[in-house]
């Protein structure tokens, strides 16, 4: 039986970049444990010599010419049209580096 702890849930949430509130942690912990326990039925299946499947139509790599398709490409303006936090045609994001502290 898998029984997720609150710490497990918080660890996964951190990996997934989700900030959960207390009520969500309480709700998700048993729900996720319940679903994950259901998966244990897969242990019944002998997969010793079975290859895993990730693609069903057996396509090999598909290549195209390394060329910009003018038709169907978005203009810079269109590309940033989904955000209102724009500066000089760029997306504004929070700083990820801080100023040097050794000077």
């Amino acid at each position, binding site marked *: 039986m898998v029984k997720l702890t609150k710490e*497990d*849930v918080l660890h*996964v*949430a951190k*990996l*997934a*970049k*989700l*900030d*959960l509130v207390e009520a*969500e942690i309480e*709700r*998700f912990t048993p*729900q*996720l444990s*319940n*679903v*994950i326990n*259901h*998966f244990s*039925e*897969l242990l*019944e*299946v002998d*997969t010793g010599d*079975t*290859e*895993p*499947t*990730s*693609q*069903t*139509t057996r*396509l090999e790599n*598909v290549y*195209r010419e390394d060329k910009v*398709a003018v038709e*169907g490409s*978005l203009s810079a303006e*269109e*590309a*940033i*049209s*989904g*955000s209102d*936090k724009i500066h000089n045609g760029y*997306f504004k*994001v929070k700083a990820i580096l801080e100023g040097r502290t050794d000077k």
Partner: protein
Amino acid sequence: MKNTKDIPLTIKETQEGLLKKKFSAMELVDAYLGKIDEEKDLNAYITICDDEAYKKAGEVDKLIANNSLDFSENFPLLGATIGHKDLFLTKGIRTTAASKVLNGYVPAYSATAVARMEKAGGIILGKTNCDAWAHGASGENSDFGPTKNPWNKKFVPGGSSSGSAVSVAAGLSLIATGTDTGGSIRQPANFCGVVGLKPTYGAVSRYGIIAMASSLDSVGNFGKSVADVETVFNVTKGEDGRDSTVKNAEFIKPKGKIKIGIPKEYFVEGVDKEVAESVIKVSKVFEKAGIELREISLPHTKYAISVYYIVQPAEVSSNLGRYDGIRYGNPRADFGAEAKRRIMLGTYVLSAGYYDAFYLKAQKVRSKLIGDFEAAFETVDAILAPVSPTPAFKLGEKASDPLKMYLADIFTAPANLAGIPGLSIPSGFNEGGLPLGFQLLGPRFSEPVLFELGKLYEKETDYKAILPNL
């Protein structure tokens, strides 16, 4: 068009009416938009686009006035009104995935399927409601409120393409689009009494369609007849140079005496009696029409839910990683409960220490499930099965228990895991007045065989679409 009851029910009726000037495309759009407004409490639509609808209707009327047209060749969807699942990007028209994360997002381009249907003469009416990010089997996970079943508003319409199924069933649009990752077209079609197609993986481009689980997603549609669904499939299928999983395949055509297999694992405990009996009744219709029936076995069926609910959330957690609230949309805190649950589940099964036990194991059992189908298709041309273990269930009945909700996908998820096509067809009603139906599954790229069988069933039963009394 004086009465919304005069709304045509098929593409053929629509085009005949337009050509014989029984009504104009403008009047058609008037009637449909009026009906959408009348039936607002079904909550089938998130966004109505009357400007675009009237503009396109004007173009259609002009085309008809100025030309003697060969509809089937150039404009197979001329005058057909469309509801697009709100997962399909529509240039200049808000697209939300039924999630608050994308509330207010207006795409700069359209999905290939949207563009092709427009070019074929279709008229967009609006964007239909669905489970947010297509996560669900009831429509109840929409951040815009649940859609209701038009045959009984206390029941769910199925999901995730809930609004699209309801739109077609209730006559709010002639056709509608959907996505099917684990049953999201076939199951709502089944619950609402309309035809729904989940094409072969890679038959229709996913370009411009909000991704859920990329090894499972397929792009299909709803209609009131098999012929209409086939027409839309033929418009949308094929390479567009923008989704490298799409190939212009050699389709399998029906030939000789067709054999249908009936999988014994789909008639087990837990399957509603009326559902099982109705599918058996359908098999007799095929038998009478000269089709050979065979019992077959798909032994790994019972593991499909576990495999699906490992592979799918894993891919969901990756696909929803792009929503960072920076380039478009709102921050991740705006994800609803089900999206968060699936992101968490997917992240867990992919995380260090669990990958082999869950994800890799699921991928291997997935191969076993595919092997089941391949063995079956050596002896039969198609498979006949129930779509869901039960007819539509009550709103709220499964909403608080995710595992219970997930188990409803048991008969639909295998086709997605195997990448094969499935066609969901209505077959009548149960004692409670809710729709019943069945699905036909075939080998990859065997859609023409499924259409042939579907049309044969409609012909043998003299099938006529009806609208619910709302």
